[in-house]
């Protein structure tokens, strides 16, 4: 075998190491460059899907929805058109286009005022990156997504009454932090949908919070708890959706709190407590914004 007994001087060793490092770095740099755009797209697509599902624009089978009926995306008009009899899977490109045109990322402050990132003096990328881990609820400027109505892009403007809002929710489950999106209708009270996009709960138990069957319960619940008389005191009512231990039927029957509660998951008590606290702690600081959004919708 050639090479046995060959003396390796320090110089040759150093040369070998340098060439090896350089080759590895070169190969990886080229690969990373080539794959950068697909990677960014994949990440954006995942986030878009979760957010659109929370806003009830995408179903859990990746079919577009328009007011609870199946829809498809018309590329020439740039809107969704209802196709109740046809269940067509949404294309990735369309999902991303819809996300870019209809979802506006804004921030809100303690008085409920909605500002763009420039107006608040923030760099959007840095803001999203720095606060992804601990959440946005306790910051002076809190992230909120405005969902615009189903109109062609040239008719959309920030002054239109929104179709809904999406609030980022975060908290702790059993094993690690959990992150999700809560979609609300324009009245900032009724829930459109709830998704969890990052969780490390036990599969089959706490991990069931990502199952569509469980998430569908959140639809049409209200986050401001109604008083027994049926009215809602937006300034003082408890804020959040409660996941009960057994079923809502057993715990609350038909009383007022039932409109703000969903069934629990057997064997996942700690995850369920985590979800409750995540919703409560994440929504609480948004109260001024939610009240202001509700009043804006009520006045129209």
């Amino acid at each position: 075998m050639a090479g046995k007994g060959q003396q390796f001087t320090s110089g040759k060793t150093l040369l070998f190491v340098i060439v090896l490092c350089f080759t590895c770095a070169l190969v990886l740099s080229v690969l990373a460059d080539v794959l950068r755009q697909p990677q960014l797209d994949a990440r954006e697509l995942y986030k878009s899907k979760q957010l659109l599902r929370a806003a009830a624009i995408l179903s859990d089978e990746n079919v577009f929805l328009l007011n609870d009926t199946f829809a498809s995306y018309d590329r020439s008009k740039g809107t969704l058109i209802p196709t109740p009899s046809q269940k067509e899977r949404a294309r990735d490109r369309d999902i991303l286009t819809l996300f870019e045109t209809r979802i506006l990322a804004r921030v809100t402050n303690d008085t409920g005022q909605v500002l763009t990132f420039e107006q608040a003096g923030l760099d959007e990328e840095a803001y999203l990156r720095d606060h992804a881990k601990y959440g946005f609820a306790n910051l002076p400027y809190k992230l909120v997504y405005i969902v615009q109505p189903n109109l062609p892009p040239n008719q959309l403007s920030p002054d239109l009454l929104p179709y809904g809002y999406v609030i980022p929710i975060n908290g702790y489950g059993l094993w690690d932090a959990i992150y999700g999106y809560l979609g609300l209708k324009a009245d900032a009270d009724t829930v459109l949908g709830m998704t969890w996009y990052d969780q490390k709960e036990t599969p089959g138990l706490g991990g069931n919070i990502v199952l569509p069957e469980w998430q569908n319960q959140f639809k049409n619940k209200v986050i401001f708890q109604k008083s027994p008389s049926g009215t809602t005191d937006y300034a003082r009512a408890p804020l959040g959706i409660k996941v009960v231990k057994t079923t809502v039927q057993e715990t609350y029957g038909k009383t007022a709190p039932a409109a703000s509660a969903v069934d629990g998951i057997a064997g996942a008590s700690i995850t369920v407590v985590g979800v409750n606290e995540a919703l409560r702690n994440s929504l609480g600081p948004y109260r001024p914004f939610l009240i202001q959004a509700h009043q804006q919708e009520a006045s129209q």
Partner: protein
Amino acid sequence: MWMGPYSVLNLLGLAIQSCFIQNILLFYFLGMCSYLACSNKLKTSNGLGLAVFVVMSLSGVLNWLVHNFITGEGALKWLTFTGINAAHINLSFLEFLIYISVIAAFVQVLEIVIDKFAPALYRALGMYLPLITVNCAILGASLFATVRAYPFVPNLVYVASAGLGWWLAIALIASIREKLTYSNIPAGLHGMGMTFVMTGLMALAFMGFTGIALDHISETDTYPLLVQEEQVQPEQNVKF
């Protein structure tokens, strides 16, 4: 960056979490190879555990520095004082390579240091020291810490407790295996088979620690809302 929003109580919770509840060996099953191969005697297991603890803690800190100043997103912004605007360069694809090189280099340096200052320990550890480089647990602790984006002090607490947890697990299985040499088990299960079953049982037992949540960062006071909840309870009795 140094402490983040973690309080001292959170750090204690983090230590308990990474040492007992999410034990890097019994929950994530990292570092199994050397664990299974070298846990016959308690003495060698202790030596190996100590070595892993030292390497894991210190390389964990070094890798935190690598992630936050070289390979993380936007990590190169400290270069701006030299005039180079490098904040948008993303070197995250080199992360694995640099991590494993740091660990290998550190183990090499540690070997030389131990040989010079504690030759007896060097002889006792023998061939295990170079093997630590490829111990999944050490790279694993660094990778988990990166994914969870800990600030500096929580990162140190995390990797140190993870190392202690690994040491604990290997010491436990070694003491059980020493006693097991006198037990009557089926021939096919001797050795590895039995170790696997025992490790599985130990892993299940350690899950009993679940639920200690001291490391959760709480920024809002939840008591006022609890009071409101109590006021709502009496309405349950109203049935339609």
